[in-house]
């Protein structure tokens, strides 16, 4: 079986392109520290009161570092009574926030506008991700996974001051 010269060049070019993608992925992980969600814990969605999700809300854990515990349910993000509905979370500029989110009922999504943070909320699983809010502004938390008739109105707000 022979391979035409031009086709061989083409395949080499393809190899280089794909190699670049692999390299970019490695750089993203090692240099920029971008992490994909990974298993944290499994919990029983009907007994959230026995977990950290019993009291959703934002906690300051260090200078400029916060932890936000949020429960998604049809069709709102519950970040505690202080945050209200739809939940409004406020962070000073430069805050690094780690989100712990889970779903109480069906599948939901958790995406923060203009930030690389995008989680599937699978009932029974705790999803965790961090991001840093560098630019002041208002960013929506959007449920981007179909969750029933009110899916399009399920959102929250993050205000960076």
């Amino acid at each position, binding site marked *: *079986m022979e*391979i*035409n010269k*031009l*086709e061989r060049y*083409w*395949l080499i070019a*393809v190899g280089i392109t*794909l190699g670049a*993608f*692999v390299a970019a*992925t490695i750089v*993203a*992980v090692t240099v920029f520290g*971008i*992490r*994909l*969600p*990974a*298993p944290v814990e*499994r919990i*029983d*969605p*009907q007994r959230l009161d026995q977990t950290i999700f019993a009291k959703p809300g934002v906690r300051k854990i260090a200078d400029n570092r916060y932890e936000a515990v949020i429960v998604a349910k*049809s*069709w709102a993000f519950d970040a505690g009574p202080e945050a209200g509905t*739809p939940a409004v979370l406020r962070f000073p500029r430069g805050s690094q926030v780690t989100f712990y989110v889970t779903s109480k*009922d*069906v*599948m939901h*999504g958790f*995406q923060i*506008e*203009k930030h*690389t*943070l*995008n*989680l*599937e*909320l*699978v*009932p*029974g*699983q*705790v999803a*965790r991700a961090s991001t840093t809010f560098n630019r002041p502004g208002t960013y*929506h938390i*959007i*449920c*981007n*996974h*179909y*969750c*029933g*008739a*009110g*899916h*399009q*109105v399920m*959102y929250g707000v993050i205000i960076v001051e």
Partner: protein
Amino acid sequence: MASVTLPQTFEAPATPTTLRLARREQLMIGAHIIAALIALMFGIFMGPFQTFHRSPTFVQYFPTIPIFTFYYQAVTAHGVMNALFFTTFFIIGFSYFVTERTLQRPIKSAAMGWAAFVAMAVGLGMMLFVLLTMPQQSAVLYTFYPPTIAPAMFYIGLVLLALGSWLASANIFLTYRDWKREHPNERVPLAVFALIVNFIVWCVATIGVAIEIVFMLLPASLGILKVTDPQLARTLFWFFGHPLVYFWLLPAYVSWYTMLPRQAGGKLFSEPLARVAFIMFVVFSVPVGVHHQFSDPGISASSKGVQTLLTLIVSIPSFMTAFNVGAALENAARNRGAKTLFDWPFKQKWNDPVVAAQLSGMLLFIAGGFSGLINASAQLNATIHNTSWVPAHFHQTLGGAVTLTYIGILYWLLPAIRGRALFSKKMALAQVFTWLIGMTLFGLAMGEAGLQGVPRRALTSQSPYLSPAGAFWLDVTAVSGIILLISSILLYANIIGTLFFSRRPMPEGEVPIETVSGDRTSPLWFERWGIWLGLLGILLLIAYGPVIAEVLDFQLGWNILRYMPTSNAPMP
């Protein structure tokens, strides 16, 4: 289609190389294609109205958009009918035709063929019934993730579709085996080689979703099971969901590799390398499903990394196809007098709807391929996951390359089935170009909307969080919806015209398939399918073993049955 009176001339058995169909073929293949077109009709006409419903400006001026009342019912019907029923019926009908004409023998068992068809047709009927009569309960979308559970009939419809498709696969495998026994030292022609690949991929992939439906969802919908694990279900679904896209794509490749060169007036560049590309699909198209689950919490980053790598590898055979088919097209243009480096794309038969449809599909596929590479890059994925970027991508690939190629096939196959000329060639050309323009704009607008954070599968015209830029791109999407609505009407006008009103006899013609193998150099062991299945098995162990272990959380013991309400999607 009982009211269609078949012309008498078609009683005569067909010779293998003329396009004229024997009565037997006409019924069997015709039944599958007509069922596919019925499914597509329900699916396709939902699409434009979805774009209207999602556009804030459109809804402002036309507050009551007819057709359907519940948006998510429409999205479910659109996805299920287009992506699952239309494609499966079409692929099986087309594969029978290709197999019979290439191997010059009827499929192994007509009875089995009809049993398969009846199972799938009953499945289609049940699915349409449940979608139309129970719009709220059945709005689980074509991915039907639990814990949202649809009425049992939804799943039974799917099971029947899968059963029928397995019977059809078996029929094609057995036909091939018979041929192989009579021609032990010959390479099977490329078209059938590719179809065997396709049905192998299909049979392996459907195992995942079959387990999910039969052991998790169907019992849950019947109230037998009170628990289900959504993370495991998603994993089983995407075990199937990604190879599914190759199941759609490979029949289009069959047309591009073994029919288009001749239709365009050229010659295939390299048959052996085409075989290499198809073999890569057997090995690499299944162990990549986790790239749909980059944002899932239950799977480790390293498992995701492994499947990212495999995903990049499975793009190689598509790049090979681009070169091979591109070279065939260049050859065709040179035969027609193209001289310079860049004039060959223009010197194609752009005035022949069969060719124009496939070329247009390829143009969309170039965009789709690159948007796909972006999706597959784990980190970039986090910006576009579940945004309308994703439908932008698969309307370039599935709605563009695949659908347009199927439509191109339809423009010669439907006249052959009906025994009459295509109703209107001009209408067909207009349909192809409006589709190309409409889908190009759709892809651009939905893609941009996605980058602005607009989610997919959402009635966004009601969303309080919509940004001005997001709203603008959704309005542009609605414009593309108008163009695509016109295109869909042109398509169905031509189909109905060809079936019922065309008076001109079908022009005499040859089957456009390359029925002999021009390949003298690829090794015969390419057809030792056990080798490829073995390699696939090893890769599956490497790629999916850890994933399943993580999802079931083996460290903490087997706790799959922890939880789950078997409820319908919550309703107001």
